[in-house]
């Protein structure tokens, strides 16, 4: 814990004060809410809007909201949304080209209204995902100005995870369930039969400043100990785990493994996994022009290595088969990402497993290539 490590214990009222304090500072506050039978990230102003008493049941290709026995506000794992959609939006206008004086082109950047976001309840895996996208989109020669603007203004209220989902495996990716750094404030939900509190700790000067404005009581050893118990319990309840092995070497040494054919039989190449993945960053350029042919706009939107056009070079797609596309996705996520950016591209959030319509589980695919899947194991 660094210099900004101030801590306190707040109640539900204190949490409301936090939302208010952020709104007062001009942040657009975004957090988990129930919508369309899922927990999604959306604008938030009242504590009552948080999904109190809800949890989720997750498995390969399966997601269902269920009632909890308590009124926990954060008693579920991650849903289909990730913070990626705010920091690296699905569509960004880049520039406009206008024909002036008959044939001269003029280029003008599209106005990019980047809100100042405050995210409520950023879990450890998601914080890890944001760190990974920071590396990809901001730390090379050409920082992405759209991402950077949003990212640099964002205020992150992280969350020590109190609920592991059926497809979670952050523990085996070393990204969670406890939040370690990179936040402004971090909450741990402490809930028992009589009390409902949040241990809140700061990780930045602004976080400490806001924390000091919140009504709260002194955090005691008992609170810290209870908070540790929360994450340890979560750690024990991970629904999945990634095999402990040198995964980059395993995959790159097995690029012609029969398992790629096997997974290709199941994979629909629907691109869901890449859309829900909080680190997948690929985009394509789209050009649209007006009917008069005077202005054209170039925009950028999320793309996926599962799309046929993704690898198109004149003559056809380099990766035509589902086998090659799945192999590209998984080897990039788990192997070549390490060469490119120094870490795995997977944070163990489990979204790709839950939201795969046929329940393909990348931990199981790794295990199969590793050769330790026991006979008769369900696919």
């Amino acid at each position, binding site marked *: 814990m660094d210099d900004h490590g101030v801590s306190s214990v707040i109640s539900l009222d204190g949490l409301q004060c936090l939302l208010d304090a952020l709104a007062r500072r001009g942040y657009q506050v975004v957090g988990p809410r129930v919508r369309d039978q899922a927990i999604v990230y959306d604008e938030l102003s009242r504590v009552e809007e948080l999904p109190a008493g809800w949890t989720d049941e997750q498995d390969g290709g399966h997601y269902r909201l269920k009632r909890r026995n308590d009124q926990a506000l954060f008693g579920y794992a991650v849903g289909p949304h990730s913070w990626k959609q705010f920091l690296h939006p699905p569509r960004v206008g*880049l*520039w406009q*080209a206008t*024909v002036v004086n008959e*044939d*001269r*082109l*003029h*280029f003008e*950047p599209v106005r990019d209204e980047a809100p100042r976001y405050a995210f409520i309840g950023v879990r450890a895996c998601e914080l890890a995902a944001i760190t990974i996208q920071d590396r*990809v*989109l901001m730390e*090379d*020669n*050409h920082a*992405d*100005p759209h991402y950077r603007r949003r990212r640099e203004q964002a205020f992150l209220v992280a969350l020590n995870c109190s609920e592991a989902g059926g497809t979670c495996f952050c523990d085996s990716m070393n990204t969670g369930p406890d939040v370690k750094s990179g936040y402004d404030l971090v909450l741990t939900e402490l809930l028992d039969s009589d009390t409902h509190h949040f241990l809140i700790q700061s990780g930045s000067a602004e976080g400490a400043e806001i924390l000091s404005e919140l009504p709260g009581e002194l955090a005691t050893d008992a609170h810290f100990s209870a908070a540790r118990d929360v994450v340890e319990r979560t750690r024990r309840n991970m629904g999945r785990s990634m095999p402990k092995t040198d995964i980059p070497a395993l995959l*790159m040494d097995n*690029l*012609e493994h029969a398992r790629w054919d096997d997974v290709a039989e199941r994979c629909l190449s629907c691109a869901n996994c890449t859309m829900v993945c909080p680190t997948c*960053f*690929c*985009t*394509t*350029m789209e*050009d649209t*022009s007006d009917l008069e*042919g005077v202005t*054209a706009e*170039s925009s*950028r939107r999320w*793309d996926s*290595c599962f799309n046929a056009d*993704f*690898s*198109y*070079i*004149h003559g056809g797609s*380099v*990766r*035509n*088969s589902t*086998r*090659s596309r799945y*192999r*590209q996705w998984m*080897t*990039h996520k788990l192997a*070549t990402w390490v*060469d*490119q950016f120094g870490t795995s591209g997977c944070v163990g959030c489990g979204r790709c497993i839950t939201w795969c319509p046929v329940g393909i589980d990348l931990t199981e695919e790794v295990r199969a290539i590793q050769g330790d899947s026991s006979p008769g194991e369900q696919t």
Partner: protein
Amino acid sequence: MNSPDAWMPEPVRVLRRKQELETTWTLELEPGQASKGAFAPGQFNMLYVFGVGEIPISLSGDPGQTDRLVHTVRAVGPASRQLATLRPMATVGLRGPFGTGWPLAAAEGSDLLIIAGGLGLAPLRPAIYHVLNNRERYGRVVLLYGTRSPDDILFREQLDAWNRLPDFDVHITVDHAGSDWIGKVGVVPALVPTLAFDPEDTVAMVCGPEIMMRFTASALRDAGVDDQSIYLSMERNMKCALGHCGHCQFGSTFVCKDGPVLSFDRLRGLLSLKEF
């Protein structure tokens, strides 16, 4: 280059257009403000055609001439077909130059084996200009050039002129020809073993269709050239040219920023993989 918005093109005028082959055109553009016409042989620009989109096109001109940017384009896709119709004074959008160049500094003092297939001669031409502009820094130059037929030979007068230079041999071979062709018929890799060169002191630069480069690189290895001395110019789908859009990945490599020119030791093994 590290402009605040590397995604946005700047407008430049077409200065000159020349038809090279039936579907291949050379466009000379005014240099942009960003690069002022400077580039390294082997690099490419992103050219934007109004209302159609952007495509990567290698520079094919003399790097010593910064008053124009020369690109040689084959009109095959929507954007390249449109580019090939542009007349002088028309404007296109320009971003670049991007990517790695041919290893011309590392190759100083060595003999050069320049091997091109089809339109692959265009990205190699700036390297040849550079060598001729700095002739004393390089040893013997052998240019192997393969095309589909005699009608597909690019830059024909230049090839003849280079062949007349001392210590510069040009060998052209075509896949098939009519009886009026007096040159060689056969594939490029088959010519490699017939050349006399010192494999220990030769740097090979290869550009052409991927399959031609693959077989050529293995012919070069068989002739004793080290993988690290064989350079290929890779081609993959490129959208942003900044290493962000993800399209051009080839294993760990982003072809747009780690390439397009890559040494064979980074590519071997992956090149023969189907659909990688």
